[in-house]
């Protein structure tokens, strides 16, 4: 109970969402504790991505709230890893990583400093000038995760990060997220129906019948 009252807990209260006339969430309450590695699982179309989007502030609930420290979460406070490790092909890798900093108002000097540190941590210094279509799938995964933590967020959201990946690659991504989680104060929330992800999570939430169990 003491942990539930932590400042950076994500508190979901009375969450209700209807999507295409289907009730996705019906008056759901849930708390994601600070520095938790939470796996959200459930069948396809049950609302895993919708929940992540609502946590990131990209979609609004029909009613209820998702708050962190009593306030709604803004996109700049989260790092989002998208399914398929999506990158903007018109920009080089360095600009792709910098994007969250650009949009969230980080100064150029600060951005370059962060880029330098992150590229060394993730071992992508030699591909910074490349275009996304010039790098490997593994490198793209690391670039996307580097981009997600660029703004030093409190939460990392990963939507089906192992989807369409072979087992080796899926394991590599999950390991990377786990190492990141271990070495920082980040809260990591991933949605996946992949059993492999279960072994990495510290907690598993199942979405079923409009509830988060």
């Amino acid at each position, binding site marked *: 109970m003491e942990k539930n009252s932590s400042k950076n807990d994500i508190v979901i209260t009375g969450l209700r969402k209807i999507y295409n006339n289907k009730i996705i969430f019906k008056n759901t309450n849930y708390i994601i504790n600070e520095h938790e590695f939470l796996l959200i699982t459930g069948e396809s179309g049950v609302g895993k991505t919708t929940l992540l989007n609502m946590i990131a502030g*990209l979609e609004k609930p029909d009613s209820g709230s998702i708050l962190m420290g009593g306030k709604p979460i803004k996109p*700049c406070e989260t790092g989002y890893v998208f399914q398929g490790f999506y990158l*903007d092909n018109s920009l080089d890798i360095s600009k792709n990583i910098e994007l969250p900093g650009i949009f969230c108002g980080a100064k150029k000097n600060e951005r370059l400093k962060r880029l330098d540190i992150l590229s060394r941590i993730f071992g992508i210094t030699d591909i910074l000038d490349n275009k996304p279509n010039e790098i490997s799938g593994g490198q793209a995964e690391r670039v996307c995760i580097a981009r997600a933590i660029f703004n030093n967020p409190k939460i990392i959201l990963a939507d089906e990060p192992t989807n369409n990946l072979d087992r080796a690659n899926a394991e590599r991504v999950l390991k990377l997220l786990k190492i990141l989680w271990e070495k920082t104060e980040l809260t990591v929330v991933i949605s996946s129906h992949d059993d492999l992800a279960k072994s990495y999570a510290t907690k598993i939430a199942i979405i079923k019948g409009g509830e988060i169990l």
Partner: protein
Amino acid sequence: MMLIDAITLGVKKITSHKKRSLMSVITVGVLFSLLFFSTILYAGFKNLLFESSLGATGGEAILAFGQCDFNEDKCSSVSEMREQAELYAKKYQADFKGEIKIYKTQLTDDEKAIQNAMANQYQDYHPQEYRYITVFPEIFIDGIKKKNAHSASIEEIPSFIKNPGEFNFLELMFSNVNKQISIVPPETDLQKQKSACAMDGDSCNNELVFVRPVLSFKNIDNAIAFYEENNSAETIIEPIGNVISIYNSYGIVKKLLSTVGTILVIISVVIMVFTFIKLINEESSNIALYRSIGAKPRDVFGIFSTYIIGLCSSALVFSVLAGGISAIFYSTINASKISDILSQTYMTDIQTGILIGFDPSLIFLVVAIYFSGVTCLILTIDQLSLKNISKRLKQ
């Protein structure tokens, strides 16, 4: 997000999708370069015509307007026409030079005999009874200003004299008919009675049949504006000199270009808008990405405004260069030929000049290009929302 970052990202979009950007710029550019080409040539053509027309009037555009046809009893009063002329002079910063007066006199016995002879020889020839004498208040003949110069003619040229060589004597006889300014007949009935005639027609033995006020414009643009305004009304207006056909040609070319040009501009704008909308729609996933990692709608709008305005500017540069260079090329090759054709057609000295120029409608073309860009941005504004963001990211 800083403005400079939006511009940087927008420019990167243009340069990184070189092929796509180039194709869009060429598609739009080719359409507009045709418009620039024709407008630049049209402006040059207009300048050539109007500058040439000034040769006959000593550097001033002289236009006569209105009519006071006493034969048909259409004229209310000469003073009323003068009043109107003063108003026009004020409005268009012109000088009211007085009136052109046309008198008619009976032909001499010798002339009547020739007329009758022609009527006997040619069935469709109607013998003329009068010589018409035109008195100009002030004109330039071969660069020399002459007051109250006048010309005489025996009405229309019969159609049969248009066969050169066949009726040389008739050609000679009527050669002055359409060259009112370039000739001053040595002796006319009017001149003979000049001392006894007050030159206002009313007290003259010659019968005054026609009065037209004359305005002189130092500024050719004012002359054109006056001509265009009055030409569209029922008022009869014409330039003095051998340039009536030139003004008429200009009117035809202008009408043709403004009709065809307007249709072409509308088609070009529609194609341009659809081309750019397609580009923005192809960026739907990137827009969703930006929004999901913290970009506000205004940030995304800034990036894509730069992108589209950049493409518009590239299309503009392409159009101006392609259209302008083509116009210069065309002009260099054809200017002398066109001047010769026009000189022969209009029987006036049309100088050989570069057939390119500036016309205000060029600004309209520039506006049309940027209007298309802005329209495209407005029509794709819903892309800035977070609607279907997951679906768009998975595309």
